[in-house]
Structures are given as C-alpha cells and as structure tokens.
C-alpha cells in the first residue's frame, strides 16, 4: 500500500494491483456447459509444473501455461478463446470495484482478537489470568451442553473475503496497474479477483 494525493489535495491510501494481462482460456456456453462464462488465465507457470491435461487445455487456447485460472460467469466482455484481456478493457478511472481474496492467516487466536469480545477490562477485583477470557459459554443443568456455534478461540484468517466498493483512483494500461483506494485482502503478492460493480 501507499498513498497518493488527488487533484483537490486529499490524500488517499491506496493499493497497487497488477491486473492482467489475462488470456481467455475457455468460453463456456449454454449448450455444452449449461451457463455462459469466460475462463481467464493469469501469470506464467513453468511448463514442467503443468500437468499434461492442463498443458492440453492451454494449447487449445494457444497460450503458454498460466498460474491461475478463474471463471467469470455471465461476463459481458466480447472476447473469444485465446484473446488477451487487459486492464483498460474492463476498468476505467472512477469505477467502483469489489476485491475478492484470501486474508492473511492469523493462526490460533483468542476471542478478543477473533470476535472482538471485550475481555474483562479490569486487572484487579478478583481477576487472575482472565483479562482476555470469553466469560460464560452457556447456562446450567439445562441445557447441560454448549450450544453449537458458540464463538470461541481458534484458527483465524486464511478465509475468502470480499471487500466491497473500492474506488479506482488511476489506471496505467502500459504497466497493467490499477491504483485502488483502500485495502484489499491478503498478503503482498497474493492473487485476487477484481469485480466491477454495475
């Protein structure tokens, strides 16, 4: 992330996204697949790490092996198999987009970090080692069990998340770069899906 100044002097925190170029590797249609979708490939993969099945799939599209394949359902881009999709084909300055990605893994976390429980908030008045404890997790001999879905500590992060309504500050087609205001899920260098909002 970084920040840039808009013309009216406001500083905007933004994320840089390398968006494309993508290659159309398959066009799914109503007759054969039951729905219409464009399958886009992004990023170069080593041929030795590509299985023969996938190598054949890429050969059909007439491209080199790609690292990521993602399907965009009911995509209104007028492209056929083997075509290249660039940033400017889809996005323009001022567009509103959603970013879908996998969040950073946080490991095993307690309820305070994971579910924003407030903790005890007091170190004295009889508290000992209980500052970040969840408190009561149920009632008594009825129901005599902890209800399903009770929020407790556990693995946090590493889940698929969609961040909505990010604004495109700038598009640089020559570098395939998108400058988007705000933060997106995941670590540096992770792959994300950007959807345009209509």
């Amino acid at each position, binding site marked *: 992330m970084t920040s840039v100044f808009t013309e009216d002097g406001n500083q905007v925190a933004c994320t840089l996204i*390398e968006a494309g170029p993508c290659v159309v590797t398959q066009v799914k249609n109503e007759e054969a697949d039951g729905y219409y979708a464009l399958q886009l490939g992004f990023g170069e993969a080593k041929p030795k790490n590509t299985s023969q099945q996938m190598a054949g799939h890429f050969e059909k599209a007439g491209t080199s092996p790609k690292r990521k394949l993602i399907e965009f359902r009911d995509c209104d881009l007028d492209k056929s198999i083997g075509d290249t999709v660039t940033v400017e084909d889809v996005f323009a300055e001022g567009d509103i987009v959603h970013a879908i990605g996998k969040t950073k893994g946080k490991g095993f976390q307690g309820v305070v970090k994971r579910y924003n429980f407030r903790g005890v908030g007091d170190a004295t008045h009889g508290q000992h080692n209980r500052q970040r404890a969840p408190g009561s997790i149920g009632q008594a001999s009825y129901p005599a069990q902890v209800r399903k879905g009770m929020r407790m500590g556990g693995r946090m992060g590493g889940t698929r998340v969609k961040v909505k309504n990010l604004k495109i500050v700038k598009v*640089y087609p020559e570098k395939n*770069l998108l400058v988007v205001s705000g933060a997106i899920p995941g670590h540096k260098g992770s792959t994300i899906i950007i959807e345009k909002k209509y």
Partner: protein
Amino acid sequence: MNAQDAINFVHEQFNSKKEYPAFRPGDNIAVSYKIIEGSKVRIQVFRGDVIQINGEGATKTFTVRKKSNGVGVERIFPYASPNIDEIKVLKFGKVRRAKLYYLRNAIGKKGRIKERKLFTAN
C-alpha cells in the same frame, strides 16, 4: 512487476515536482498552506521549528512545532501535498538529534534551539 517498482512508478506519476529549500530538524520554517473554503482558497502561514522528518518518497512528512498563546501546537505536513504553497527557512538550528521530541517537555532555556552559524565564502 516487482511491488517496489510498481510503487516507485506510481509515485513518479503523482509527483508534483515541487522544489522546496532544504531544511532539517531544528530549523525554523514558515509553511504557507492553502486552505480551501468552498470555492475560495486562502493561504495560511504556519511558522515553527521542524521537530522531525519522517518517511521516504511520496509518503515523506515533516512535523512543525510552535507555541501558540503558551500552548504547544504541532502540525504534520506531507512533502508531496499539493496544498503546500511555499516553504521558507527562517533560521538554521543547531541540534544533536534527528527527532526533537524532548522539546515537548522542555521548559525555559532547554526548550530553545541554538542557531547554527553558516560559513560564508569570506
């Protein structure tokens, strides 16, 4: 593309290419800052000592501290801000550290910055 290359590229595009006189922590400067009120633009001068220079590149900032009616006031300016109209260096200070946070608690003579004498040709 490398992430740092991408950031450098974007910073280059947004660079306002404004040049300000060189100053460092301890210097007394006057920053003319544009204030936009509706459609009118007014220029306000903030004069004080530079107590820190932070960051690098497009996110580099400097903090100016002044005493206003006996109350310390600090203001952080981004170097790249298009709202900075002009910076004037009024006095060069002689200080021994890069971050002058001690000035916040310094009273009386301790809170003063000695002037740095600049060598001239003759």
